[in-house]
């Protein structure tokens, strides 16, 4: 907690102290009432009321008049107390909201900067819980641990002094139970702490079940799995309940124990206090019944506060667990980070070299082995390979989603690790296999990488990606909110938005990670021209399987089990035996269809050449 909060904390404490002082004053005035009445009706039996601060009512006032004045004062004090209490609540609210807001910002900021590896390893449910409910539990911690405990201690101190003033011996007797309280609290905390951690995990599971179910709705409905899913959810839900019940039993026992211990105080006061009053009867300086009443009132107040310790200990367990979970996120090391004084490249040329790059998600499971590759600015590299051969992994090293285990990658001669991370990523446009779009307008999504882009720039990018015309067909054009009524986009449409999004910031490197996988061949054909536009002047890496795409590359590399096994142009590779020619032949049109097409073209007398020339492609 910074200096910034220290003053606010002090203010909160101060206001609460004033409230406490006023409460005490109210209580004292109440006690005064009894003594006043008692003395007025039987001066010989009861002590005269003890006026404080030298304030003494004029002797000629009737007791009733004094009584009225005292109670007007009482009302005034109560009013003041109400005002200060409101002020204290408000300033405490401000403090907590300031801390909470700051904390939420920090968590979000941190989450945004953690590496892909972190998100591979952590489920959405737990991250959401940490950012929302766990974070919310922390102000409770602040409220209890800082404000309430301090106030509790001070008020205990004041009340105790007050009590000692009345009767020191009696006060000491009341303190006997205190160590017992401490022991009970410690035992309890030790016991339930791990249980609360477990509890949060079970809760994450419940959230995960829901989020998976919603995201996989089509599968659930398509396979009529509703009942199965309900059972699975019930399992997680029941496990949570079972565990909660275990916790409840313990917390109830604990609360009752603490309450009993405070009640024990009252028993002691009655016993010892009663004895003292009886012993002192007739002694003018001895303890009066009125004093015993006030004393008991004070003790009851203390008891309520002490009993709230049980509450505090309980809440603390919950919020400490929450705090721990938030801390785990905040202190998570950032694997991919800027080095000091990073190079800031202003639109690099796009020369990329892989030098003996070896990589694996885990150090002992290498996926890429000694990759060497040189790409000149503006070149287009296509990567081909079997499932699991390391294509996507190779591409994910370029924007530094991960760092190589050995070797290095350079951009325009600089090691990627020396380049400012944001600058590096801004110079790269990336389209994934499956594109995530935010539930916001089409224009927002296209301008995602450059929020200050003008509408013209957005439309230009959409045109490059052949998306403009379908966007104009949407209910509200570029202002249509994705995911809302009628604006459920097809895979092909989503992917074209993603391409528009990637080209908008005018990156010098373009990475298409099997970007056209979900686009139907017809649409892919349509956007080839657009992709050519997008690629021109940019170093492009693409994972592709279709010959139509592969043929556009300046160089094709074939990956097999993390090694480059073939490389060259389409024509070169077609003439060699190997993976490439085998795949290529599979995609070629069958003889029967070719025959029909040729026959028809000839019949219709379309042209001398049976095959269309590239420039005729719309």
């Amino acid at each position, binding site marked *: 907690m910074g200096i910034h909060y220290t003053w606010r904390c002090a203010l909160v404490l101060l206001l609460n102290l004033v409230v406490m002082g006023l409460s005490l004053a109210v209580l004292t005035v109440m006690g005064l009432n009894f003594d006043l009445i008692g003395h007025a009706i039987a001066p010989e039996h009861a002590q005269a009321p003890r006026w404080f601060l030298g304030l003494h009512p004029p002797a000629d006032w009737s007791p009733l008049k004094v009584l009225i004045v005292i109670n007007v004062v009482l009302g005034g004090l109560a009013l003041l107390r109400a005002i200060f209490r409101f002020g204290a609540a408000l300033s405490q609210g401000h403090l907590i909201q300031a801390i909470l807001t700051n904390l939420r910002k920090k968590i979000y900021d941190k989450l945004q900067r953690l590496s892909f590896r972190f998100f591979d390893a952590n489920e959405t449910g737990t991250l959401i819980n940490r950012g929302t409910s766990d974070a919310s539990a922390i102000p409770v911690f602040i409220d209890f641990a800082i404000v309430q405990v301090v106030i509790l201690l001070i008020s205990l101190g004041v009340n105790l002094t007050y009590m000692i003033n009345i009767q020191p011996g009696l006060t000491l007797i009341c303190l006997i139970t205190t160590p017992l309280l401490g022991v009970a609290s410690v035992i309890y905390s030790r016991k339930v702490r791990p249980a609360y951690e477990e509890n949060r995990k079970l809760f994450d599971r419940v959230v995960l079940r829901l989020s998976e179910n919603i995201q996989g709705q089509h599968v659930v409905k398509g396979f009529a799995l509703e009942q199965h899913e*309900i059972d699975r959810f019930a399992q997680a*839900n029941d496990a949570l309940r079972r565990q909660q019940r275990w916790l409840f039993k313990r917390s109830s026992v604990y609360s009752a124990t603490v309450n009993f211990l405070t009640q024990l105080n009252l028993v002691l006061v009655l016993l010892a206090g009663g004895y003292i009053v009886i012993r002192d009867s007739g002694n003018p300086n001895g303890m009066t019944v009125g004093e015993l009443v006030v004393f008991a009132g004070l003790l009851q107040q203390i008891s309520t506060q002490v009993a709230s310790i049980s509450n505090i200990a309980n809440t603390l367990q919950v919020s400490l667990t929450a705090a721990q979970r938030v801390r785990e996120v905040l202190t998570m090391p950032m694997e991919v980070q800027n080095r000091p004084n990073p190079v800031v490249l202003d639109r690099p040329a796009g020369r990329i070299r892989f030098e003996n790059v070896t990589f694996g998600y885990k150090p002992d499971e290498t996926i890429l082995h000694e990759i060497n590759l040189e790409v000149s600015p503006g070149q287009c590299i296509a990567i081909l390979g079997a499932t699991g051969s390391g294509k996507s992994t190779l591409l994910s090293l370029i924007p530094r989603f991960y760092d190589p285990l050995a070797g290095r990658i350079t951009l325009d001669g600089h090691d990627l690790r020396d380049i400012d991370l944001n600058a590096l990523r801004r110079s790269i446009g990336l389209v994934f296999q499956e594109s995530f779009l935010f539930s916001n307008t089409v224009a927002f999504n296209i301008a995602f990488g450059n929020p200050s882009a003008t509408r013209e720039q957005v439309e230009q990018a959409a045109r490059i990606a052949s998306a403009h015309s379908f966007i104009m067909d949407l209910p509200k054009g570029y202002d249509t909110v994705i995911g809302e009524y009628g604006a459920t986009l097809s895979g092909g449409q989503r992917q074209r938005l993603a391409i528009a999004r990637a080209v908008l910031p005018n990156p010098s490197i373009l990475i298409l990670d099997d970007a056209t996988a979900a686009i139907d061949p017809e649409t892919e054909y349509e956007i080839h021209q657009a992709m050519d536009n997008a690629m021109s002047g940019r170093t492009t890496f693409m994972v592709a399987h279709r010959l139509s795409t592969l043929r556009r590359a300046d160089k094709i590399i074939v990956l097999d089990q993390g090694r480059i096994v073939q490389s060259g142009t389409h024509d070169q590779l077609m003439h060699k035996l190997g993976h490439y020619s085998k795949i290529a032949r599979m995609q070629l049109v069958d003889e029967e269809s070719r025959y029909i097409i040729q026959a028809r073209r000839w019949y219709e007398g379309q042209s001398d050449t049976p*095959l269309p020339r590239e420039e005729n492609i719309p």
Partner: protein
Amino acid sequence: MKKRPAIAMLTQANKDVDIEPNRRPLSLNLYKRMLRYTRPYRGIFIALTLVVIVRAAQLPLLALAFSAVINGPIKNNHLTQLLWGVGGYAALAIITQYTLYHRLHLALLVGEGVVHDLRFDIFSHLQRLTSGFFSKTKLGRLISRITSDAETVRAGIQDSIFASMVAGGQIVVALLIMAFSDHWLFLVVLATAPAYYVTYQYFRQKLSIVHRANQESFSRLTSTLAESISGIRVTQVFARQDSNAKMWNALVSDHAGYNLATIRTSGQFSPLLELINALLTAALFIIGGWRIFHHSPGASLEALIAFFFLLSNVLEPVGILGTMYTTAVSAMAGAERIFSLLDRKPDFADPPDALTPQLKGRVEFRNLGFGYDPAKPILCDITFTALPGQTIALVGHTGSGKTSIINLISKFYLPDSGRLLVDDIDIRQINSTCLHRQMGIVLQVNYLFTGTVMENIRLGMDRTDQQVIQAARDLDILDLLMALPQGLETTVGERGAGLSLGQRQLVCFARAMLADPRIMILDEATSSVDSLTEMRIQRALNILLKGRTSFVVAHRLSTIRQADQILVLDHGRIIERGRHTDLLATSSVYSGLYQQFVLANES
């Protein structure tokens, strides 16, 4: 409450689904409905009510015993009596704490039970809702229903209902004793009742509004966070952390504003109650004192002291009631949001007499029209018949209506006009579960759940491991699945993390094979599977489609060539239909599409 200016958000609010706080205070009906959830726990509830009643009597009794000891043995200077009195008091204290244990434990049990059931009901209800709902609703909002909203309900049930009962009971008992011991002072206490009533009424309105707004704002926070995490890769790729953070910060600050509004309102409420309490006390002192000074019958200092002990048993619970009231209002705001989700009717439901036929697999569209937004038709006048065992390939540009046809056959949506018949029965008349059991659906996005590959293939179907393996073997992909790090026992992360798209597709094929459906629906995700595996996939596909009525959004040449019928769609209409060779020879659009696609691969 002031109207806040709109803030830029990462995710936009959906007016259809999002609840805007209104100014109406929360109703009693809501309260009753919430209480209905305690019914399954009636046993505990009754026990708890008894405990609460006992406790409501115990607390004033404890105070009474305390003052009796002071006014009796201590006043009379009687030591033996003191010992007896204190002993009695201690015994009463022990019983009281034992009651407290049960009171706390039972309340927690009921609270957890209710929240458990609410979560379960929400989840089960979501399973009944149709696809239209899910395409419009953000995940984060649904999550906040089972997290923060359910938690406020818990607090409401386990704290406020019973604490209010204890407090209320305590007040009644104390008031009764008061009425008997000093009816004059009792009347004074009674006279202040309107002040309390007015205060409660005033704050009921105010608190409902601020709590509703606060919870709505929190749910915005959750949904934004959920989406930020899902889209984290995109954010990092575009180095957009700062703009996102700015939007998030604005949202968080906005939420803090709502929180503060809540704190301000409840911060006025409790001190105000306390003030009224103090004023009442002052009035009682003056009137009580006046009566003593005037030697009114029954007025004495002792009676006054006793009365004030009773008074604290009225005023303290009034404060507790105030706090509980705030909790209750917040719980009701949460319950309101949960119930509005539970009350959401599915866009359509099976009729009660829905049929459960054994399907042969004949599918017929008759002059069918459909649009997600009825004002914007996607499909017009679609008519075709698929005979059992036939493969129908759907071809056309993105947005031409292929996916909509598939969605209709899957009964994810119902047609707006015309008819869709399965085995000559209107699809509306067929039980959805029965239909889906006989249907295999593989969509473009191959969704996997966390769990093993084996579990993902079996997906809750009642099949043995052996049958799962057999299904993979029948598709001739067992070796590919066994090649995974731990074979079929390989664990899949959230949304299939850890498997490549191709591997995910294989798992989905095996899943469909195991289901052994009569009708197969497939949205081919073309080159998701690399070409080296392509041949295997094609073979598997042929096996999968064989003998089943199949609808394929086709991207593979082989699939198109082998289809019994190709439907060429354009702007929601079937413009050409027939077999591959016929279409190629006679049609214009199809052969154009085909040539564009195929011939581009050659030169």
